[in-house]
């Protein structure tokens, strides 16, 4: 047994399994709620709706997460095909197409959960909460589910200013107001829909639970800077669902799970234990969304000594200590507690000393390049794997510029692998390994280049 574990390329964290199991509870909770006639919302992952919905006793399930779950179970195929025959163009988001196929099946079965659905499936929604945050698909997709469900759709907007705008006086306050108003309207809508008043005292409770989990995730990620890297991206992805797709679940178990996780990672750091059972030859960052159907590919890379030590997506926010005592409005409080101004974030990240330089740079270039590249340096990555998704514009369109700037500033090369979050047929592991082996020479080369430049890794 232990023998076998050693020979595996990945050294998984024991405390991960408990957290991973929490996700199934989320779907169970959804199923129970439906059975008991309590409202169930299909919700997009974003920072805002969770706490409000659970304070209103609405159970959330997450189609994005569910689609990735289908993909991981290699069961997404038939749903994708169904979406295609429903007339949806095949280039659309794999999450969305899986969800459309699922919904079409559900209608076919008069609202019953399709028997082929993994993890007990998602119950028929009372409400769809989509989000203008992150990508277009997220607010278009739920609207088009109107073909299958009569559930009302609410779309939560959130601003996405350019870095330059963010640093322009007035922008931050305007956006705080925007978010606050949006959430107020959302609450009004929920009260109308559910026929009951919002209990703001409970909003704070769940809000703080979320913050606590975020703080732990952030501290764990700080530990991951150690050499050798103590926690692999695969473990990060395994636990992140429990933290981000919590729905109404009581946070206590998840907070506890993360405390244990922190201890285990800390122990590894103190004892120099790596996340891979091979010498850590290369430290990598994963940029973009993972290929849920083929995560084993990272084990093959681990076998070559590749350790994935950080990732750009789903990362925790730096915990913010700000005094909210003067703010009476619970929603505004809720917003300010998690919406940080770029100016402040730059100070958080670079310190009061360096901050003005960074700000000036941003105002000139229009993009917060250094902020975007920073983790590559902090985690001392030898390379970055860019996962270009054939069905996702949002996660793919910026990658080329990122790699360009990264090589330019820190002399860290990127490897582009084409694939998809859901659709297996778009990923070719043999081709990817062929590229990976070649890329090792490139990483070796730039290691020298960085040394010559006097960079620290």
């Amino acid at each position, binding site marked *: 047994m232990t023998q076998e574990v050693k020979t595996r390329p990945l050294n998984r964290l024991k405390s991960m399994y408990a957290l991973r199991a929490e996700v199934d509870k989320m779907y169970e909770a959804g199923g129970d709620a439906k059975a008991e006639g309590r409202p169930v919302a299909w919700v997009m992952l974003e920072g805002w709706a969770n706490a409000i919905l659970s304070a209103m006793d609405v159970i959330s399930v997450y189609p994005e997460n569910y689609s990735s779950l289908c993909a991981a179970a290699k069961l997404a195929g038939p749903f994708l*095909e169904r979406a*295609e025959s429903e007339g949806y163009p095949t280039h659309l988001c794999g999450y969305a197409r899986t969800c459309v196929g699922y919904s079409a099946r559900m209608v076919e079965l008069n609202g019953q959960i399709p028997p082929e659905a993994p993890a007990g499936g998602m119950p028929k929604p009372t409400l769809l909460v989509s989000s203008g945050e992150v990508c277009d698909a997220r607010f278009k997709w739920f609207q088009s589910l109107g073909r299958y469900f009569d559930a009302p759709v609410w779309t939560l907007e959130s601003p996405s200013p350019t870095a330059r705008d963010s640093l322009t006086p007035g922008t931050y306050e305007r956006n705080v107001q925007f978010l606050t108003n949006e959430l107020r309207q959302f609450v009004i809508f929920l009260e109308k829909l559910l026929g009951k008043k919002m209990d703001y005292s409970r909003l704070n409770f769940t809000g703080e639970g979320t913050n606590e989990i975020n703080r732990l995730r952030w501290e764990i990620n700080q530990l991951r800077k150690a050499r050798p890297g103590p926690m692999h991206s695969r473990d990060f992805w395994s636990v992140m669902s429990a933290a981000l797709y919590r729905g109404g679940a009581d946070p206590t178990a998840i907070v506890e799970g993360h405390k244990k996780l922190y201890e285990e990672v800390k122990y590894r750091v103190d004892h120099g234990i790596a996340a891979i059972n091979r010498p850590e030859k290369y430290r990598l960052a994963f940029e973009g969304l993972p290929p849920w159907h083929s995560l084993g590919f990272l084990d093959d890379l681990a076998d070559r000594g590749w350790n994935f030590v950080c990732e750009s997506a789903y990362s925790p926010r730096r915990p913010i200590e700000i005094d909210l005592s003067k703010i009476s409005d619970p929603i505004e409080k809720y917003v300010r507690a998690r919406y940080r101004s770029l100016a402040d974030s730059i100070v958080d990240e670079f310190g009061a000393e360096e901050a003005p330089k960074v700000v000036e740079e941003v105002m000139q270039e229009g993009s917060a390049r250094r902020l975007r590249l920073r983790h590559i340096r902090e985690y001392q990555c030898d390379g970055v794997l860019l996962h270009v998704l054939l069905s996702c514009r949002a996660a793919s369109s910026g990658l080329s510029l990122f790699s360009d700037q990264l090589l330019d500033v820190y002399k860290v090369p990127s490897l582009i692998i084409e694939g998809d979050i859901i659709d*297996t*047929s778009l990923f070719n592991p043999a081709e990817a390994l062929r590229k990976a082996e070649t890329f090792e020479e490139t990483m070796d080369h730039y290691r020298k280049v960085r040394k010559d430049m006097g960079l620290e890794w």
Partner: protein
Amino acid sequence: MASIYFAGIDLGSTMTKVVIIDGSEKVLASVVQHTGAEHRRLANRVMEEALGKAGLSVDNIAYVIATGYGRINVPFADKQITELTCHARGVAFFFPKARTAIDIGGQDAKALKIKDGKLVDFVMSDKCAAGTGRFLEVIAQALGLKLEDLGPLSLKSTRKVTISNICTVFAQQEVVGQLSAGAALEDVVAGLHDAIAGRVARMTRRLKVEPEVVFTGGVAKNAGVVKALEENLGCPVLVPSDPLLSGAIGAALIASETVAKLQASGTFKPMTGRRLEAASFFK
């Protein structure tokens, strides 16, 4: 009494077909030939051959409709109509109860929805060889097999392999990889058939499949693809005795209907001096 004759010519990317019928929709002659590099000249030759078979001369033909990928290259046709409409008409002629028609040709795959013998909706594959006859031709060639052997061979398969690559050229690599790794030839071929059938079935479902389902085009001669298509659609698939001819027959039938209409309205003027001159067009 001089009876009346109509011709339909279907210029496909790989095959050219001509059908001549008389006023009573009786097929007098049908010819199928490989499409060469010079459509128009070939059109003439195939037409001549068909006329010969029917014992007719070109001026006996009242109306000619050209269809198919090369339809614009038929100088002696009265009218061009898409293969979509002509296939639908031809399929309805073979199988009056047909509601769904699938045609896999060399160039593309189409799915047709038919009502009262007429085309009401359709979908066509994108411009990629996967899911077309070319896919099989190219790979059969690479494997040194005859196209007509693929079907029988695949029916022997006991455990078909999955071909995941979409691009024909890369699927070919995948096939060689599979064979080298020891997969049985029939299992690989069965896998190829399933790959095509899968793509085409997905496309066809956009039309909401209704029976009867009819399968035409060169690939319909391949029993392996027919089987795979039935598996993928989950319903029986009918194949006409000569699946290549549905387009040309459809064209001929539409020719006869067109003339009937024109005569009814008294506006029918037969093309005078229709000639099968070998158009030379290399400037």
